[in-house]
C-alpha cells in the first residue's frame, strides 16, 4: 500500500481481540451475608460454627436472596390473624442488624400517609418468601434518616412489579440526595458521628460548621478498634459456598 506521502506505509498489525471471559467475571463477585461474620469477642468459635451450620441448613430449604440496604423487598410472612393466613409487605430496607441466627432487617414504607417500619428476622420460620423488587445500593449503610425525610422518598407501591435486572452486573449505586423535613429531627443527622452522605443539607453554613465540633478525627487511627475481617470472611465464604453447592 502506498501512503498519501508516496512512501510505503509501515505494516500495522490488526488490534488484538480483547477476550472478556464472562465465567471469570462471574466468579469474582462474591457476596457473604453480613450476619455470617462473627463479632469480635471472647466466645468459643465452636458456637459460631454450630450457628453457621443451622443458618446454612435453613438457606438450603428457603432461598434468602442477596440484598443490601437500599433495596426494595417484598416479604410474605405467615400470620394466624390475617384473612389468607399470609401477610405481604413491601418496603425499602433501611437497616440490617444482628449476627448469626438472630439477624434482622427493617423495611420501611409509607401506607396512606402513615410511615410503617417492620423489623423481620431473616431466619424466622414464619417468613414464607423474600423477593427483591428493585436492586440499588445507596450511599449509606443505614437509612434511618428517611424517617425525617419528606414522605415521598419512603413511599413505594405495594403492587410494584419486580424490576428486571441483568445478572452478573455490578449493583447500581443510587447517589440520590434526600431532602429533609424542617428541623427538629429524631437524630442530629448533620453531625459527623452518623457519617450520612445521602442527605441534601439545606442548613446554613454556620450550623454545618458547628456540627463539625463533634467530629472525632482520631477514631480512624485508633488501632484497638480495628477489626480486620478479610481472612475470616474468606474462610467462611469457602465453607458456606461449599455447603450450599451440595
Amino acid at each position, binding site marked *: 500500500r502506498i501512503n498519501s506521502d508516496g512512501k510505503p506505509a509501515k505494516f500495522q498489525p490488526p488490534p488484538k481481540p480483547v477476550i472478556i471471559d464472562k465465567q471469570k467475571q462471574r466468579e469474582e463477585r462474591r457476596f457473604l451475608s453480613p450476619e455470617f461474620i462473627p463479632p469480635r*469477642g*471472647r*466466645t*468459643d468459635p*465452636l*458456637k459460631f460454627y*454450630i*450457628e453457621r451450620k*443451622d443458618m446454612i*441448613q*435453613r438457606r438450603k*430449604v*428457603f432461598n434468602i436472596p442477596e440484598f443490601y440496604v437500599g433495596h426494595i423487598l417484598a416479604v410474605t410472612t*405467615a*400470620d*394466624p390473624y390475617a384473612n389468607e*393466613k399470609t401477610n405481604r409487605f413491601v418496603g425499602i430496607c433501611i437497616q440490617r442488624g444482628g449476627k*448469626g*441466627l*438472630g439477624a434482622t432487617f427493617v423495611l420501611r414504607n409509607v401506607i396512606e400517609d402513615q410511615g410503617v417500619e417492620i423489623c423481620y*428476622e431473616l*431466619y*424466622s*420460620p*414464619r*417468613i*414464607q418468601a423474600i423477593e427483591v423488587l428493585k436492586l440499588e445500593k445507596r450511599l449509606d449503610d443505614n437509612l434511618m434518616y428517611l424517617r425525617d425525610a419528606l414522605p415521598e422518598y419512603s413511599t413505594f407501591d405495594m403492587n410494584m412489579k419486580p424490576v428486571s435486572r441483568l445478572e452478573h452486573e455490578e449493583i447500581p449505586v443510587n447517589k440520590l440526595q434526600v431532602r429533609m423535613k424542617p428541623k427538629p429531627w429524631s437524630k442530629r443527622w448533620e453531625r459527623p458521628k452518623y457519617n450520612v452522605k445521602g442527605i441534601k443539607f439545606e442548613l446554613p453554613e454556620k450550623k454545618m460548621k458547628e456540627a463539625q465540633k463533634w467530629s472525632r478525627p482520631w477514631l480512624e487511627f485508633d488501632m484497638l478498634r480495628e477489626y480486620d475481617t478479610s481472612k475470616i470472611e474468606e474462610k467462611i465464604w469457602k465453607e458456606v459456598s461449599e455447603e450450599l453447592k451440595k
Partner: protein
Amino acid sequence: MMPIWTKSGKKHAVTLLKVQDCHVLKYISKEESGGKTSKLLVGGKNVSPFSKSESAMEIFKEAGVPRKQKVSIFNVTDDAIIKPGTPLYAAHFRPGQFVDVTGKTIGKGFQGVMKRWGFKGQPASHGQTKTHRRPGAISTNKAAKVYRGKKMPGKMGNIYRTSFGLKVWRINTKHDIIYVNGSVPGHTNCLVKVKDSKLPTYKDCNKNPPFPTFFADGDEKLPEDLYDDEIFQFTDPSLTYA
C-alpha cells in the same frame, strides 16, 4: 445465646452449654459423708496438673484422669452409683427435661446500694446536698441498733447462684452441647453445674432418661442432634398456619 423457634412460630432464647471432658472422680458412701444420700464427685474441664500440690492431685490420680478445673458434688441414690473414671456426656440429658444450672455470677466489684440492692436514691436537684445515690436511713429510732443483714454497699457478684426449671430444647451428641432455655448465671465460657430440676412441678418430667448415665461404648447409637417435639427444625419448610 441463640434464638430457637417452636412449631407455633414463637421465639425463645437459648443458652449453649458444652460438656467438656467430664469424668466421675470419686464415690463417697452415705456413712462416710454423713448425709442422707451417697455422693459422687464429678470433675469438669481438663487443665494442667503442674500448678497444684501433690495432695490435691490424689483424687485425680486414683480415678486415672487429668486434673480438672471444676469439681462438684452430686447427691445420688444407691442405684445410680457410677464407677469413678467413667466419662460423662451431654447425652445424659434428653430434650424435654427440666434442669437447674448453678454458676458463679459475673463479679461487679464494690458496688453502691443503688446497683447492688436496687434502692431508689435521691433526686438529682431541688436542693439535695451531696446526696444522690446514698441509702438514706438505715434503721428506726426505737430499734437503737442496725439489724444484721442490712442492705448496704459491698462486693457484688462472684457468688454461686442457680436458675431453676430451665427446659432442655436440643442436644448435640457430636460436640456434646446442651441447649438450655433462657439465661444462665456466669460470664461466657465459665464453668457451671447442671442438675436435674428439684422443682415439684417438674418431678415427673423425665420420661425414660438414660439411667444411671449415657455410656458411649454401649450399644445405643444416637443421631447427631436430638430435638424436642415442639422445636422447628431447619430441615422443614417454612411455617404455615392452617
